[in-house]
């Protein structure tokens, strides 16, 4: 140290002033570093932890929901037969659920194209706090219920909160989306499969709400078809646009009659002819 041993009072005062300045700068620096780490932590939480939590919660909902179990294959079926009975498609007018109370989980959906994705619950309402962030897929209140004439419109997160519609871009025309209603009160439309197929996709501005009109994109028209519409964010990690998938009902079947062939790998859809049994069809 080259400092003089006998520091004058002025020297000491200057050193103290310097100490205060450096200390303040140091604390500000540490606060900024801390803020950066907290923001990084937020990204980890938003992009990873909400998925972990959401997937756990939604799997729990699907596991706990009260519903019928589709029947197993008949005992006479050979080893080559699928382990479950295949439901016969019905093309007559399907039974339709009454719209349930807000945040009620009334159905689940499965998308065979999204191999590895779990079955997702569908609940009434589309607000984030009570439905989309915690219950998975949400049904736009006031739009048609599954199977009904009109537009059964649902929303789901593309990223974060278990991202049920993350792989929406993989859907191709003709792909099945299988909706299965739960037992609820056991009335019409409960415990029913509704198999929809993709007819078109579009990218729209968030303000373009006509995509969920009873006749998609034509709010004044009278609906005649049984449509379904899936909406989610586009592009990923942004809320700038919406990615929309329109589907149309292919067939329906009671859960008690079996499982749709779309959900059974290697199974063929049996004909709607009541005289042909699924096992006779497959052999």
């Amino acid at each position, binding site marked *: 140290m080259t400092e003089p041993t006998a520091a004058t009072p002025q020297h000491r005062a200057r050193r103290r002033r310097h100490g205060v300045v450096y200390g303040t700068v140091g604390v500000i620096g540490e606060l900024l570093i801390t803020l950066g780490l907290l923001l990084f*932590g937020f990204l980890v939480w*938003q992009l990873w932890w909400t998925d972990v939590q959401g997937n756990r919660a939604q799997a729990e909902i699907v596991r706990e929901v009260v519903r019928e179990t589709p029947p197993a294959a008949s005992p006479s079926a050979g080893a080559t037969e699928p382990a479950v009975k295949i439901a016969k498609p019905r093309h007559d007018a399907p039974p339709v659920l009454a719209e349930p109370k807000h945040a009620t989980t009334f159905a689940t959906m499965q998308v065979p194209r999204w191999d590895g994705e779990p079955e997702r619950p569908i609940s009434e309402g*589309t*607000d984030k706090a009570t439905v989309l962030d915690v219950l998975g897929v949400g049904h736009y209140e006031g739009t048609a219920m599954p199977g009904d004439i009109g537009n059964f419109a649902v929303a789901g997160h593309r990223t974060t909160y278990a991202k049920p519609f993350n792989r929406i871009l993989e859907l191709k025309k003709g792909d099945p989306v299988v909706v299965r209603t739960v037992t609820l009160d056991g009335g019409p439309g409960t415990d029913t499969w509704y198999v929809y197929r993709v007819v078109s996709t579009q990218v729209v501005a968030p303000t373009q709400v006509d995509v969920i009109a009873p006749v998609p994109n034509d709010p004044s028209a009278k609906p005649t078809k049984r449509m379904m519409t899936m909406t989610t964010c586009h592009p990923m990690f942004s809320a700038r646009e919406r990615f929309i998938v329109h589907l149309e009902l292919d067939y329906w079947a009671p859960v008690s009659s079996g499982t749709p062939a779309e959900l059974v790998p290697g199974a063929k859809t049996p004909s709607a002819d009541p005289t042909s049994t699924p096992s006779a069809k497959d052999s």
Partner: protein
Amino acid sequence: MYGWLWRHLPGPTAVRVLISAILVALVVVACFTWLYPAIAPYMPFNETTVGE
């Protein structure tokens, strides 16, 4: 700030490191449980619902 904290932690270096790690873990848990869920609705990329 952190220097002050470090000087006021008791025990030898190993114990101080352990206490620091526990404190950091507590802060992370508190953020994941309360802070981040509370601020998430105000993030611009979370305006996701159509038609609102």
